[in-house]
Structure formats: C-alpha cells, structure tokens
C-alpha cells in the first residue's frame, strides 16, 4: 500500500509516519510539508514543499500515485504560523494535494484531519453534537476546517472513493505546539468563571492512533474523535496549580493581548473554547476505529506533568529500539 502524508513535519504527521513505517502492509510512504519531520524517519520519503507551491505538490502526488492519502497538513492559527498564513496555507495545501489526488488512478481512500471547531458554538447550538449535526463554524479556524472538508468531499466524489473526515477534539500534549496548551500553562490564566462551558481535549498520541486506525476502514463521512469527560477552563487552571484570573466581556481583549506578550497568543477558536465550550459525541468514532481515547482529565494531568517525550522508535525491520 502506498500512503501519502501531508503535514509530515508536524508532531502528528511525524508520529503517524512512524506508525506507518512499523506496518508491513505499507510498502511506500511519501511525506510533504513546509517543515522537516520532528523526529527520525526510517523508510519514509520526505519532500519539503511550500503549501502555496501548487505545481510541485501536484507533480509529487501524481508521480507517487497514492492508494491512501492522510491529509494531516492543517495549520492551526498561532500553532507554528500566524493566523493569515495558517489560513492561506491550509486552503492551498488542501486544494493542490486533494485536487491532484482525485485524478490518481490507484486512490482508494482519503483521510482528512479536521476538528470539532467545524460545529461552531453559535448561541443555541447543540452542546455535544454527533456526526449528524450540520457544521456551522463560528471561528476562522472552524471555517478553514470546513473548507478542507468540502474540498476533500468533492475530491472523494470525483475519484469515487470514501472520505473519512476526522473531527478531532482540540489536541494538547506534552510536546505538541498548541496555542491552547501554551495558554493553559501560563502562570496566571484568564478565565470566565460565570459564563464558561465545559470542553473536551484529545491527547496527541490518541489523535495519531485515530488517524492511523482509519486506514482501511473505508468509513465515508465524519467521525468525532474525542475521549470521555470534560473540564471547564477554571477547573483546568486549578488542576494545573495556576492562578485563575477572572475575565469578563471586553476584558478578553486585554487578556488576549497580555497572553500574546507572554508568548502564548490566544486565537479566536481557543477563546471560544474557553468560554463557550467544545465537546462532541465520540461514540461512532470509537466504534468504527476501535479506539478508546484518554479521558479529558488524564489529558489535562499529562499537560501539566511536563513529561519527556519518549516514543518507541521503530526500525525498518519493525523492531523497537
């Protein structure tokens, strides 16, 4: 099986490619990203491609003729790029790679990283949406993810292959560059104790396992990937022994500015999560993929534990070292 991974340079992309390298049924792995892989890769082939370099991306995809595409190349605002660049790169990457893949004769499945942000948190929106709820994004990142889903669905229809839309809960972990994780680790954290609603989080390892497990399942449609339980922002801050600073209404403008000065800019979708919450029903995702993600409480505890990252490294022969 030939697998193409976009976003291989990110934490998720590198880890997913390591998982694929240990799978004997995967014969060839081609990765592309703006940044080089964050860990050692063994038998994957990596190409550095600017997301806006459509010609190079299209040529690579057509020459490789993938059977499965794992589109992990989603740029979260303030994760590693600024919001404008993140939006442009996410859109350009999706259009060029998925558009080219739609015309590849061997393509069998498209798997796309999306997020719960596509559901939006408009007033009166369902608190814990399942996959049947129509997306109605209310943040720029949610809109960006919605566009990627749309492009992937169109590409899937054109190629006549199933498209698995992986709506991952906000990902945090000890090493992933996440604006939410950075914000929650500040010594004093702005929260709205009166208005806040609960949110769910996903550990980076569970996100990678979910992306990897989706290969070959041929699920056509969205899957919510979210563990059990939820926490409020105040509760999270208290669990991490930080100082919760009450912030109300326009005070968030100052809180966002202060956190940016401290090196943890707060994008609109993270602010929305802290106030309006963000959860979903992950029953279908767990059933289809056979996964039980960690609970949100466990994810929060690990976020504040500052653990060393020590993934077992797979060699070419599959043995751990």
């Amino acid at each position, binding site marked *: 099986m030939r697998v193409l991974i976009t976003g291989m340079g990110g934490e998720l992309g590198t880890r997913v490619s390591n998982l694929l390298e240990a799978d004997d049924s995967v014969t060839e792995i081609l990765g592309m990203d703006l940044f080089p892989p964050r860990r050692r890769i063994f038998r994957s082939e990596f190409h550095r491609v600017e997301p806006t370099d459509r010609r190079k991306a299209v040529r690579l995809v057509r020459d490789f003729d993938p059977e499965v595409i794992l589109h992990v190349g989603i740029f979260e605002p303030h994760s590693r790029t600024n919001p404008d660049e993140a939006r442009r790169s996410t859109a350009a990457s999706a259009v060029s790679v998925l558009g080219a893949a739609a015309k590849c004769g061997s393509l069998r499945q498209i798997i796309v990283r999306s997020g719960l942000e596509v559901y939006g948190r408009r*007033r*009166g*929106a*369902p*608190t*814990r*949406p*399942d996959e*049947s*709820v129509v997306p109605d994004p209310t943040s720029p990142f949610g809109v960006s993810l919605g566009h990627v889903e749309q492009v992937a669905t169109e590409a899937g229809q054109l190629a006549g292959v199933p498209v698995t839309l992986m709506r991952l809960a906000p990902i945090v972990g000890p090493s992933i560059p996440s604006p939410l994780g950075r914000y929650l680790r500040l010594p004093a954290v702005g929260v*709205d104790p*009166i*208005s*806040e*609603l*609960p949110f*769910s989080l996903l550990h980076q390892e569970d996100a990678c396992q979910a992306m990897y497990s989706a290969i070959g399942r041929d699920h056509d449609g969205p899957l919510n990937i979210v563990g059990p*339980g*939820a*926490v*409020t922002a*105040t*509760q*999270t*801050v*208290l*669990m*991490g022994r930080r100082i919760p600073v009450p912030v109300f209404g326009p005070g968030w403008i100052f809180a966002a500015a202060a956190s940016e000065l401290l090196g943890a800019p707060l994008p609109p979708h993270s602010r929305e999560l802290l106030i309006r*919450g963000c*959860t979903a*029903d992950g*029953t279908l995702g767990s059933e289809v993929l056979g996964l039980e993600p960690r609970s949100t*409480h466990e994810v929060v505890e690990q976020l504040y534990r500052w653990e060393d990252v020590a993934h077992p490294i797979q060699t070419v022969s599959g043995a751990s070292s």
Partner: protein
Amino acid sequence: MSLDAVRRGVPGASLAMAAQRRARGGYLVDEWGLDPDLVAIADPFFAARWDLSVEGAERLPAVGGAVLVFNRRIGISEPWVLARVVRQASGRFVRTVGVPDIAPVGPALRRFGGVLDRTDEIAGLLRAGQLVGLPMSRDIRSRERVGQLTVERLEAAIETLSPVVPVALVGREVGRSWRIVVGEPVAYPAGGGPLAAAELAEATREAVQEMLDEALPTAWWF
C-alpha cells in the same frame, strides 16, 4: 481511624472538604455542564426549601435513558422539585430541558442539570443513558389542566427507544409541600410511522392529566 473519618464527624467538615476539592479542581463536570459536586453542596438548601412526598418512585428507571414528562404551572419550582425527588429516590440526576443559552443564567443552570431545548440535544442525552426532564407548557390560569407537549421533542425518545414516564407535580410556587406522582411508562403506539411522536405525546399528556386529577386535593381554595 482515617483523617477523613474524623473529618466526617466534625460539623461543617464535609463542606470544608468540598471547598478544598474545588480549590484544586478535583471535581467532575460532564459534557453538558452538570456539576454533581456543586449539586451536593447546594443540597442542604434544597432540603430546607421543600418538603417532598413521592408516590411510584420504584417506576423510575434505575439505569439507561428515559424521558420524564412533567406538568408545571409557573414553572420555577417544578424542575428543582423533580430533580431533587429523583436524586433522593434513585441517586440519578435529571437533565431538565429548556435552559436559555445566555450567560450567566444558562451556564449557571447547566451546573445543576439544565440542558438546551433541542431534539438532537435530548437524543444525545438519552443515548448517553441520562434521565431527561421534559416540561409541558405552562398553564398559569389553572393548576388542574396540564399544558401542551412539544411533539418533536418526543422524536428523540422514539429514535433511541427510551421509555417515556409521566410525572405529576402538585404544589404551590411559594409553598413548601410538594407531592410527586410517578406513573407507569407510556406504551409506544403500535406500528410507528410519522404519527408515532404525535400519538405518544397525546397519550403522555393524557396520562399526566389523569394522574394530576387523582393527585389534586378536592378543596377548592387549595
């Protein structure tokens, strides 16, 4: 003897322990916002506020999702009364439908089990095995007549094959005494089809009305 056992014997110790737990963030909040710890802290207030008597508590489902359809007159006390009775009788929480999605009222009521008035919200709760309290419309003029039931909301019960349990509440908004009667689950209409939810709503409404007729005192001035 453990320190916790000693603390339990000291007046106010449980409240102090709860405060300590909350200061550390060591409490649970579910996806819809229910905070069982906060409910437990507020429980002495509810106990002082209402004197409740219940009939048919054994008909409350011990596990799994169910819809409890209840009448209301003004509608301020009824959700709290029902939630407390069910908590006392079965140890389960009632997720009362109809919370406004406006801060700070909405988030505050969600801490005590309130949920939004949406069919997909109710279906999600039932799939998760929760008890959903579905109020009928208000009838301020007469306490002898039950209000209407929104048919679409019962589609969630039909979709998840959850039992629909009628509950009659008798009491006064400013009074202390409330009487709660829990009925047998309403039988689903045979055959299903598009009219199933409407027929189920009608049968449920009639069941609550009958129970209310029997439960109301005969004295006209009450």
